[in-house]
């Protein structure tokens, strides 16, 4: 069986759904960040797949590389925020960080 675009898109959709589910359901801030990573990588998969099957050339791959770098940076910032939350609330449960409500 030769893999087609639809296979890639299905995998990416599943991956995105898993990431989204993680972000929406987990209380742990680190886990949420991990969910975000999943979603980013689902997007990466889409970029590479479309580049391979539809566009051609190297643009999609390059884009994906940038997203990976961006994800690393995002993780660094996100973890720093988590650390700060932990410092403040002595927990990394996101439900604790609700100071913005009235």
């Amino acid at each position, binding site marked *: 069986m030769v893999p087609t675009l639809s296979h890639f898109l299905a995998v990416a959709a599943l991956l995105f759904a898993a990431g*989204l589910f993680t*972000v929406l359901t987990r209380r742990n801030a680190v886990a949420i960040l991990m969910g975000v990573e999943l979603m980013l990588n689902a997007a990466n998969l889409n970029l590479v797949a479309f580049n391979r099957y539809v566009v051609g050339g190297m643009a999609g791959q390059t884009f994906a590389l940038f997203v990976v770098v961006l994800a690393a940076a995002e993780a660094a910032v996100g973890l720093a925020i988590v650390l700060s939350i932990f410092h403040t609330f002595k927990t990394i449960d996101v*439900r604790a*960080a*609700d100071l*913005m*409500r009235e």
Partner: protein
Amino acid sequence: MEHAIQQLGPTVVHQAGYLWLIPLFPAIGALINSLVGIRIQRTFGKRWNHAIAIGMMTLSFLVALRAFAQLLALPAGERFLQNTLWNMMTAGQLSFDLAFALDPLSMMMVLIITFIGTLIHVFSVGYMADEPSYWRFFAYLNLFIFAMLLLVMGDNFAVMFFGWEGVGLASYLLIAFWYTDIEKAKAGMKAFVVNRFGDFGFILGLFLLFWSLGGIWEPRADARSVNYVPGIGYKADPTALNPYESTGPRNAIVHGHTIKLGPTLNFRELRDQVVIEGTGVGEHLRHQKLWGIALMTLVGILMFVGAMGKSAQLPLYVWLPDAMAGPTPVSALIHAATMVTAGVYMVARLSYLYAMSPTAMGWVAIVGVLTAIFAATIGFFQYDIKKVLAYSTVSQLGFMFVGVGVGAYWAGSYHLLTHAFFKATLFLASGSVILGCHHEQDMRRMGGLKKLMPVTAWTYLVATWAIAGFPWASGFYSKDEILWKAFTQRSMEFFGTPAPWLGPAIFATGLLTALGTSFYMFRSYYMTFTGPYKGGAGHAEEHDEDPHSAHAAPHHVTAGHPHDDEDPKPAPAHAIHAHAVPAAAHVASGHDDHGAHGHVPHESPLSVTAVLVTLATGAVLVSILGIPKLWSGHDPILEHWLAPALPAEVTFAHFGHATEWLFQGMGVAAAAIGWYFAMLLFKDGKSRVPHDLKHRFFGVWTVVYNKYYVDEAYHALIIRPALFLASFLSWFDQHVIDWIVNFFGWLARFIAAIDDAIDKYVVDGAVNGVGGLTREGGRLLRRIETGRIQTYLYGAALGSLLVVLLNFLFR
């Protein structure tokens, strides 16, 4: 009067910049004595108070003499001095200056006022010596002279009216001088209020005159257009649309003289435009009518109402007898010499206006003669020496009005002059008697004073001769002239009806009055100065210079005179005199001063007798001014002197010399008859005839003794209704007006309450409703904001899912 026939020109004015000094000096005196007088009296003594007052009077008199000299040096037709200080007011056509003017008439008045005024000031030094508030008296006297001088020297009605009101105020202050005695305070108030009645008429007449001068001049049918008269350029403002409504000064040119026309308050301007034929103003005024009455009649009568108040004519004379409550010098100054003659002066001043209305002339003469005889009859039976003189003053004023009423303006003015002298003498002599008898005024408690007070007695006798009308004293000349002119006056009208009988009728009544005058004046002389002295039973407990002593007199006489025991009228409760401190102190200290004399009357001090002698001499000497033409062949000096100031044209019937001699004889005979009967009845006080007559005609006697119950009539007809009206109005005010006011207050509160409710519930409701809605909305929406990141993400996910779904659904 021949001089009036000739064509009159405009007044020639000579400026005299010092005239203002004449009224200024008394004003300064009044100011000093009223502001610091009490300190002067305490620090330096009373001497300085009267020194200031008399000094100022003397200065004023000297300036008046200076003016007199200047006036005398001018040609007869040009005797008019003017001194304009500044413009006081200009409003439309109304414009008047603070200006003084002296023409022969006002010069005569000024000389009388300053000369007799000064003498009376001197007299007051002796008379008021025991008065605690000495300074106040002299301040008032000077104030009075100041106002009187304004009255006669005013160049226009405004200044004159200021003086007119000023003398009213000063007389109020002086009559109520001993104000702690309620009767005296009441007398002052009475004088003031009665004068207000007159002033009201005067000011109405003034308004009417001013208005009529400014009216629209319609050309008359008989070709004499007012617009343009041949030979006379009548200039109206050519730019005005309607030449009759021009507001600028209108001038007429008559014989080369420019004469100002139109409404004016200035006497000279008024005189010029009315008197000079060519202006047409006289004709305009003569033919104007208001409500069917000739306008000049209305003006004349209304202004005469003012004179009736000021000069005490029927029916407004009532204040004058009561005004005897004031100190005797005041009676002499105000009620004999000066103030009461203001009305006569006013009529003489406006002679040309009165001459235009025979009805107004007749009215003045009738009121005058009725007053004369009415007051004379009251004078018959009074026992209070000052009351006799008071009624005699009223009566003589009536004579003056007969004079100015029948058109003998100079004779009326001359009687004013002679009366000023002899009545001032009489009053001051009576003051001397009162002083000598320790404030006794009842003539039944006098008698025989001739031996004790010779100077007073002689001066009183001279003045009595004068008033009675004997040729060796002045009254004869003026009274005779008035009566003669009344007899020969045939052109007067009785309310529009020609009445040639009016003149002779007035003459007859006047002659009868002259007889009566002679009788009651000699009666007072004999009762006071001859016979045995009947006083001395002790110092009069009652301080008798009060208006109701006539009521009180029978009361305290009962003890001494058993035959008088029937009181014609029991002393009313209000006549019981509650004597307040100053009056009592006055009597008591007077007692101490004269203690050495006991109760025996004594001659008054030199300051009193000197004045009396001067005035009595004057009363004789002024006859020179009025020697009739019949005797000397030329016009009397005073008539000649006054002629330029009295430009009215009045015609008199002509009679032969024999008739005139006869009438003079009748005048003297009337006086002699009066004297004879008075001598018969009252000399030596032995005759029982007066007493018998009194009991024979007791009813009549009572009525006349009580002054015809005029005061009571006033009380019933005027004062009671006025008080009733006042109380009704008070009730009306409290119940109706207040109710209306309260109703409107309540209404306003009611409306305010409604407004408040609207504000509170509708307006505030809307505002609060919007606010509440926003707040509640906000509260509801706030629930959404949980602050949890995952909630928002759910929203975002759902939203994007929705977008995707919609994308599928609505393609």
